């Protein structure tokens, strides 16, 4: 069961995801939409990290470790993977935006439409 001793990080997670979705849905600038996606990603990453954290724990490194409770390493590995993927997606989206700007001369999402024919 998810430990709900300290709910602040979870509230932050929900807040970040909602802010990101808000930005994606209501902002018209393509760059702001991309920023919204990045915010959602940060929220999800924070969620993963928070799941692995235990109260008063140390980083999970065995080399010259002082001993005691360690936080879970698996969510940190997952977060890292997710960050790596995020970088790739971000780069791809930004380069699409460069091309879109070249073709349309605008970044307004409502004006970026495909050919009907």
């Amino acid at each position, binding site marked *: 069961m998810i430990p709900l001793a300290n709910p602040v990080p979870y509230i932050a997670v929900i807040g970040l995801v909602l802010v990101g*979705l808000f930005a994606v*849905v209501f902002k*018209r600038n393509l760059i702001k*939409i991309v920023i919204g996606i990045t915010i959602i990603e940060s929220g999800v990453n924070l969620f993963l990290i928070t799941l692995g954290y235990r109260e008063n724990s140390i980083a999970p490194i065995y080399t010259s470790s002082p001993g005691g409770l360690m936080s879970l390493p698996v969510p940190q590995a997952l977060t890292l993977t997710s960050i790596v993927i995020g970088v790739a997606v971000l780069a791809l989206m930004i380069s699409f935006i460069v091309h879109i700007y070249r073709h349309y001369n605008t970044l307004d*999402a*409502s004006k*970026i*439409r495909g050919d009907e024919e």
Partner: protein
Amino acid sequence: MLDQIISTFETGSGFWNPLVWLTALVIAFLIIYILRGFGKREYKKGTDQTQAFLSGNPEYEKDKMHVKANNVYWGFTESLKSVYNFFDKMHTGNVSDYVLWFVIIMGILFLIFGVI
């Protein structure tokens, strides 16, 4: 192996057998061939016999005779204009709206599972 391949497929109220179907196909082609044989062969090329008859009107250019895709189902789209207006409004082509639909569907599902 072979009898497995040509085994009959039963759906409950109907069935499908490749052999039966192939026989039907062959018969259908035979009928078509026979019907084709009734056609007249002794027409003269290059004369008025091969011209299209448009109630005496002159024939247009070939390009203009072709009905464009835009006009093929004109009647259908015209009579269902209200439906198409709605669909057109739905398909804005704006990426924000695509995500908005996703949020709406998620919200509906949350509502259903929350209420019940």
